[in-house]
């Protein structure tokens, strides 16, 4: 949508308002609304302001918004638009005729910025063809680079209700995403040859259409819907000169176009025996994606060369036909068989068939076609003992069968209990405890012929998403309202995951979180909200390093067994990641007088994250990571609204934001010369993403509003 089209749209809204308001008669269309316009000015310091503008357009310029709401006894309209012509524009118009139809049209623009003022040795960033000649050690001749994309979601809906209880509804939208995002590619075929940051082109378009019809009454709701969604990517891949391969043209594959369709059947029956409600849902969906398969490592080798590393890795099929089909069935029965007894029984069933092409490549690569079946059932029971006490409990069973290479069968059992007390009129307290036990059938217990076989180590590695797990979780909430104007809320969560059978991998993670909130609000006076949050999150893991491809005299025999003696080339080590977060917020709404309203808030957040490591005999000399990362965020937001009369008001605001980011993975950042001792064709080329995020910003804005 260009600026001219925007002007037409805004003009139409302006015309509509007064025109509607002018209609007189016994059933006049009554309306209200506002038109706001003003400007924003920002004063910033920082090398990369992409974090400041991550999701918003905060450039100097005009701010605007329009609101309109009106109705008569038969029809209604509700429209709002803001930030016209800016990258974060939003327009939403809803309306309809009571008991006949509702309709909506909207557009929602979202910038997503990743990097400002970066550098790249490539020309053509944003396109699917990145060109450079390596080595390129002189950053002074590199190109400036910004990474980010603009997402525009435009759509609408229409629902016909005239033949109630029957209804029919159509939703449709188009999402266009244009720009670049963060990416990279390893220089060589094996690790250790450096890498090169790439600007990945983003030219996506997704079109979604959903049709739904149904029958909805107070006692029964039935509906059937069909969704068709198409994702298109203008670029199948991005090509780039790879310095490791003497500037041969390399190729990074981008998300393939896909078609998705889904059928859903929903039903709910209420007022059944035992004061129960039965809810049922069945869905079927399918995702398809076709691709022509590449046959060699490089698209084009350097001129005059045909080295073996450009050679064939021919697939067993010239094309890949991706096809995943899923079905789900869910049933929930909620009943109140006795006064004070509230129960629910549920069943979830899911199945995924992967009908995609199985492909084998000449280099040994082979795709795994993942299929699964998930069965979940459980119940909840709540019983109100008396007016002040309610207890609850439940059980959940989960069973996953799949053809994953490491686990094929997973069962988990969860038990939970809670007690809610409202004995005191001013206090509500709830404590909930849950216990989860998960066990999986591990398929790699016999991996590797013996402890001198690299595969042997897989016997000890467990992926934490399916590894055997014992989880304990406690949640405590307190809501205290000593007076009508004061509210105190406290929430405490403790969660402990213990991956007991894991030798190598994540062994434990623990969360401790406490959140406190205080609010005060006098009906006609000032209101305040104060909160303080503190949380610690810890991840413990255990690993084994073997620095060679096969056991030798340095490592000693059986080096792939974590129980074997440590050496400088093969040893166990552990990591303890500790993440400590603070957040304090204060907000105030203060009506100075009938005309003047002041609002303000201040937020301060701090994260201190570390990783402490230890190794057998201190081999590898692991030094702790003390900024992993450390973050401090401060934001101040002040706004005053002065009303001159019932029509006119002015809003003025000031905001301050400060973001300090320090990270051991970026401190001392270098665009190239990494590592300094590497050969020229093994150097890495970086673009500055995430390295210089810290910023200070002062934001000023003034807006005038006319209400009608």
């Amino acid at each position, binding site marked *: 949508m260009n600026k001219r089209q925007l002007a037409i749209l805004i003009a139409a809204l302006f015309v509509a308002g007064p025109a509607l308001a002018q209609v007189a008669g016994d059933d006049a269309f009554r309306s209200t609304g506002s038109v706001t316009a003003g400007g924003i000015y920002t004063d910033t310091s920082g090398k990369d302001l992409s974090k400041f503008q991550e999701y918003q357009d905060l450039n100097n310029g005009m701010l605007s918004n329009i609101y309109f709401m009106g109705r008569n006894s038969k029809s209604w309209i509700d429209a709002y638009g803001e930030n016209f012509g800016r990258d974060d524009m939003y327009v939403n118009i809803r309306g309809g005729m009571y008991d006949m139809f509702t309709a909506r049209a909207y557009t929602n623009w979202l910038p997503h910025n990743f990097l400002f003022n970066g550098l790249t040795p490539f020309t053509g960033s944003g396109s699917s063809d990145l060109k450079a000649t390596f080595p390129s050690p002189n950053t002074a001749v590199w190109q400036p680079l910004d990474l980010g994309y603009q997402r525009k979601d435009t759509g609408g809906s229409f629902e016909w209700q005239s033949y109630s209880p029957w209804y029919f509804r159509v939703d449709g939208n188009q999402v266009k995403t244009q720009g670049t995002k963060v990416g990279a590619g390893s220089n060589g075929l094996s690790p250790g040859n450096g890498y090169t940051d790439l600007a990945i082109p983003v030219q996506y378009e997704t079109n979604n259409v959903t049709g739904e019809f149904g029958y909805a009454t107070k006692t029964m709701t039935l509906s059937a819907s069909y969704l068709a969604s198409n994702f298109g990517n203008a670029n199948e891949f991005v090509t780039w000169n790879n310095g490791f391969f003497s500037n041969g043209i390399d190729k990074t594959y981008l998300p393939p176009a896909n078609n998705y369709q889904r059928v859903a059947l929903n039903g709910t029956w209420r007022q059944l025996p035992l004061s129960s409600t039965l809810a049922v849902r069945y869905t079927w969906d399918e995702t398809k994606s076709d691709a022509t398969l590449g046959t060699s490592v490089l698209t084009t080798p350097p001129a005059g060369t045909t080295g073996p590393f450009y050679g064939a890795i021919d697939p067993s099929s010239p094309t890949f036909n991706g096809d995943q089909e899923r079905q789900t069935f*869910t049933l929930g029965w909620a009943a109140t068989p006795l006064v004070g007894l509230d129960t629910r029984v549920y069943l979830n069933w899911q199945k995924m068939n992967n009908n995609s092409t199985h492909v084998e490549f000449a280099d040994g690569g082979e795709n795994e076609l993942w299929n699964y079946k998930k069965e979940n059932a459980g119940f909840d029971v709540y019983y109100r003992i008396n007016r002040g006490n309610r207890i609850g409990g439940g059980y959940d069973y989960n069973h996953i069968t799949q053809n994953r290479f490491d686990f094929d069968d997973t069962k988990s059992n969860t038990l939970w209990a809670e007690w809610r007390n409202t004995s005191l009129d001013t206090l509500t307290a709830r404590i909930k405890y849950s216990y989860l036990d998960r066990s999986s059938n591990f398929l790699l217990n016999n991996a590797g012929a013996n402890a001198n076989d690299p595969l042997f180590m897989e016997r000890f590695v467990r992926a934490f998403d399916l590894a055997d797990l014992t989880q304990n979780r406690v949640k405590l909430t307190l809501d205290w309202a000593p007076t009508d104007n004061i509210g105190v809320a406290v929430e405490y969560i403790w969660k402990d995951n213990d991956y007991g059978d894991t030798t190598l991998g994540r062994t434990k993670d623990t969360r401790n979180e406490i959140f406190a909130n205080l609010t005060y609000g006098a009906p006609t006076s000032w209101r305040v909200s104060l909160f303080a949050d503190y949380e610690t999150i810890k991840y413990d893991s255990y690993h084994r390093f073997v620095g060679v491809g096969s056991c030798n005299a340095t490592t000693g025999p059986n080096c792939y067994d974590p129980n074997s003696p440590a050496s400088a080339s093969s040893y166990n080590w552990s990591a303890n990641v500790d993440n400590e977060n603070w957040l304090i917020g204060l907000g105030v709404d203060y009506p100075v007088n009938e005309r003047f309203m002041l609002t303000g808030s201040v937020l301060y957040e701090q994260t201190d994250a570390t990783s402490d490591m230890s190794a057998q005999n201190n081999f590898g000399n692991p030094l702790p990571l003390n900024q992993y990362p450390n973050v401090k965020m401060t934001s101040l937001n002040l706004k005053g609204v002065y009303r001159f009369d019932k029509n006119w008001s002015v809003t003025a605001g000031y905001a301050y934001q400060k973001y300090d980011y320090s990270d*051991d993975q970026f401190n001392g950042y270098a665009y190239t010369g990494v590592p300094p001792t590497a050969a020229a064709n093994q150097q890495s080329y970086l673009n500055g993403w995430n390295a210089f995020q810290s910023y200070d910003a002062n934001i000023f804005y003034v807006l005038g509003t006319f209400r009608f």
Partner: protein
Amino acid sequence: MRSRSALAVAGIVAFVAVFLAFPTMAQTQKVDTKPVCANCHEQAHKSIDLGPHGAKNDATGSMCQACHGEASAHLKDPTKAKPQGPLTNKAATAGEKTGVCLTCHAGSRHLTFWESGKHAKNEVSCSNCHNIHKEAGPVVVAPFTTSFRANEADVCGKCHQQIRSATLKPSHHPIIEGKIKCSDCHNPHGALTPVMLRAETVNQQCYSCHTDKRGPYVFNHPAVEENCLSCHNPHGSVYAKLLNEKPPNLCQDCHDVARHPGTVYGAAAGFQNPSGAPGVNPTVNTRFIARACLNCHSNIHGSNAPGHRGQFFLR
């Protein structure tokens, strides 16, 4: 491209034009009359007058009484007799309060799974979230945004404090910016999926926006297919890309084989020389700095690249 945009604008203009015609169509409809309740409760009347509740109201205040209870005694002696509906009764349970709303709204398609949802089970009533008479919303504590709309997350955050805290972290979905709503993913009116997700599974929910991640790829990352939440926290994280943990640690929690996946990466692997000497650290490790494992394994969600390049998500 240009014609599509023009079409979209024309559609929106036509949409507005349709509503211009409504007043004419409505001339024969019933007359709007101020309810008797407005004589004393003027502000309460004004707050609903232009909304759907006001549209169905009449001179007797039938819509007022539909929610607040029968008021004939109250009309005779406003000081002594008050309507006895659950909404004005402090002792009423959440279920009783919700029952008032369901009197009319039980047939709404949005409430199809209300009874199966966590809010119903945890005694959350409609009025805990919906502000019918437009009283002042929660005091907003948030960084500056260019959006002047009320933010749904401020309402949800009153109870879900852990989530509110997460959305304020450096890496987050654009929730506090008002570009994504809690209800885009969760159905507060009830759902059959755990945590009241709108979609059947976590991944299907994520794919509804992240359509580029749907694949199917030649090489799929099992952890991605299992559950996006294995690696990401959708509400917010201190780590980039809403990751639960920082790479390489996150990757090493599942992957440990000979050579680099099992290598210990400490401060000596960073750009900065641990001794404080100037220049790039001679022992800097490209598998630790910046995005760590993702520097090379950049297509971690899946890849169509051939052979091992795709299998290991390198291209």
